[in-house]
């Protein structure tokens, strides 16, 4: 059952979170647009069978996850008609009357020794109501076979008290059951925070956090700029650029052991590292031969292959999900536009034509869309272009958008933008209907990178 978090993963995560130094800023998501389009749902507060109060706020995490996905509009607790702990005590019609067709109920039982049993059920209230009406529901108080009102039900036995992680796991199951798309709630983001350069000795920080901004952890602080974090496909490492030696160099750092390796130290630009989908290579930009070109380095052997050779600027390589192509930005046609290069044939094709320029291209996980930073009439916005018909749609209305990074399930884009003079992270759904902001407390937040699925 791949849905279940392995105990090892939980343990590793717990250890990491214990020894880690908390970064100062915490991100809090502010939804700015798109709740109206979302499907109503209710996450009933989970029951607690144990001493004291329920550790962690399981249902809060699930509520927030579902709301932040842009696909659901969870009901406020004060409006709920009842608080059932399992399917047997659900009054279906009372939920249907409130316009709620789907509810999540559950309970947590303390097993002792820091072990807990979490039971939860995802219930179709409309189906339940119809079954009730047709009188097939209960037979001597026992549920009859073929419970069509039960969409999903799980029992998880978990160790430890990282209830946020368990909440995200339940959210993943709920999301996948209801949308058909894999949930991306158990993911992380990496980004660069720049504190006040006047007063902070090491203002540049490389930070990782849960996708929702919780559990912030600074991996590295530096006097000199840090740039372009990029996740390895196993979610264990980050590649990034550090100017700590007075010039840009590419490093790879393990986020669990913190061990780091300097990968490149060529003259000129060493930039924009991106792990290949198989994790064996890194695409990068080097200007050692005079001007910025795209290269691919095999990590194990350090063997370098030059991909582009043009006197114009080539930069921002990004792997196609199949690992056989790269998209990149190039000025070879005048202003920067997105091109695609086949790594076997080295054939290059221009992909974007709309607007003054297009930069920072990334292909969605399903390979059908290209997400870019589009400049039209001097405004920089996140846009997507269908790779089949070439139709482009501008998704954002924020100011000076840059560095888009796509969630591993392709549902959401995280990017950096200016809000009231400060660089902050923002979210936009791939259809552009849901928008949210993750304002940092201190400093400028930039260069977000969404992790792969972490399990």
């Amino acid at each position: 059952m791949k849905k279940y978090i392995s105990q090892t993963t939980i343990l590793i995560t717990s250890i990491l979170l214990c020894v880690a130094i908390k970064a100062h800023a915490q991100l809090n998501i502010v939804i700015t647009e798109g709740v109206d389009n979302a499907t109503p749902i209710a996450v009933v507060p989970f029951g607690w069978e144990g001493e004291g109060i329920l550790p962690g706020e399981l249902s809060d995490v699930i509520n927030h996850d579902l709301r932040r996905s842009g696909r659901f509009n969870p009901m406020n607790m004060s409006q709920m008609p009842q608080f059932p702990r399992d399917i047997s005590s659900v009054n279906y019609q009372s939920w249907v009357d409130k316009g709620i067709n789907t509810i999540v109920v559950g309970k947590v039982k303390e097993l002792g020794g820091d072990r807990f049993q979490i039971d939860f059920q995802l219930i179709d209230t409309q189906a339940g109501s119809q079954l009730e009406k047709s009188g097939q529901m209960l037979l001597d108080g026992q549920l009859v076979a073929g419970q069509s009102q039960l969409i999903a039900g799980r029992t998880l036995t978990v160790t430890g008290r990282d209830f946020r992680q368990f909440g995200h796991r339940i959210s993943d199951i709920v999301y996948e059951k209801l949308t058909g798309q894999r949930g991306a709630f158990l993911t992380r983001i990496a980004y660069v925070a720049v504190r006040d350069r006047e007063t902070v000795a090491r203002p540049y920080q490389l930070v990782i956090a849960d996708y929702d901004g919780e559990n912030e952890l600074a991996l590295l602080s530096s006097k000199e700029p840090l740039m372009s974090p990029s996740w390895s496909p196993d979610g264990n490492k980050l590649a990034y650029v550090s100017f700590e030696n007075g010039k840009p160099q590419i490093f790879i750092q393990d986020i669990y052991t913190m061990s780091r390796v300097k990968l490149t130290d060529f003259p000129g630009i060493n930039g924009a590292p991106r792990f290949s989908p198989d994790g064996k290579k890194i695409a990068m930009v080097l200007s050692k031969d005079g001007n910025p070109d795209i290269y691919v380095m095999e990590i194990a052997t350090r063997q370098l292959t030059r991909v582009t050779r043009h006197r114009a600027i080539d930069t921002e390589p990004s792997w196609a999900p199949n690992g056989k192509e790269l998209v990149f930005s190039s000025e070879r046609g005048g202003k920067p536009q997105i091109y695609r290069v086949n790594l076997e044939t080295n054939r290059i094709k221009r992909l974007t034509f709309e607007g003054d320029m297009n930069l920072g291209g990334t292909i969605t996980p399903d390979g059908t869309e290209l997400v870019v930073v589009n400049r039209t009439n001097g405004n920089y916005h996140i846009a997507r272009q269908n790779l089949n018909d070439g139709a482009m749609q501008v998704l954002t209305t924020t100011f000076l958008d840059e560095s888009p990074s796509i969630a591993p399930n392709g549902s959401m884009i995280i990017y950096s933008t200016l809000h009231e003079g400060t660089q902050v992270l923002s979210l936009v759904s791939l259809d552009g209907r849901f928008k949210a902001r993750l304002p940092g407390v201190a400093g400028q937040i930039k260069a977000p990178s969404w992790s792969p699925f972490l399990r």
Partner: protein
Amino acid sequence: MKTSTSLRSLLIAVPVMTLMACSSGPSEAELAAERNRVAAEQAAAQQAAEQANQEQVRLEAAQRLQQAQEIAEQERDELMSMQTVYFDFDRATIKADFYNVLDKHAAFLVKNMDQTIVIEGHTDSRGTPEYNIALGERRAQAVETYFLNAGVSASQISVVSFGEEKPAVTGTSEYAFAQSRRAVVVYK
């Protein structure tokens, strides 16, 4: 006349010889010592004079060197106050306003081969960070090329682009943008 001359010599010589014979005057050894002393003094004086002369030469040379260094430092200080070249939006072409400043740096670097510089390239915050790294490098390279054309040795110059990562002025005003689009000549 001859007689009178000899007589006169005699007249002088006799009293002198008498004087020498009857007084306890300086001995021959003493006279030699005296002569040696005078000679040594003269030699020492001569040596001192020579030393003084050499010292003078050395001093003057040092002064000249110091002056040269001072001039170099002064020039450097002066150049430090004009180490920044500004660029137009999305451009890496050096504007004619800055030729004069860059010429001064170039002349100084040609004259002082021991001086080395780093040319930093910067951009404003518009556009993507990666593209701006490339644009910043282009700006720094434009300054490098200008110096090379003016005869500065390539070994005196290195180039680094910080893109949009180190704005001179933070914020999104036109002023902040304009101040940040720059190349900076930094003496090591």
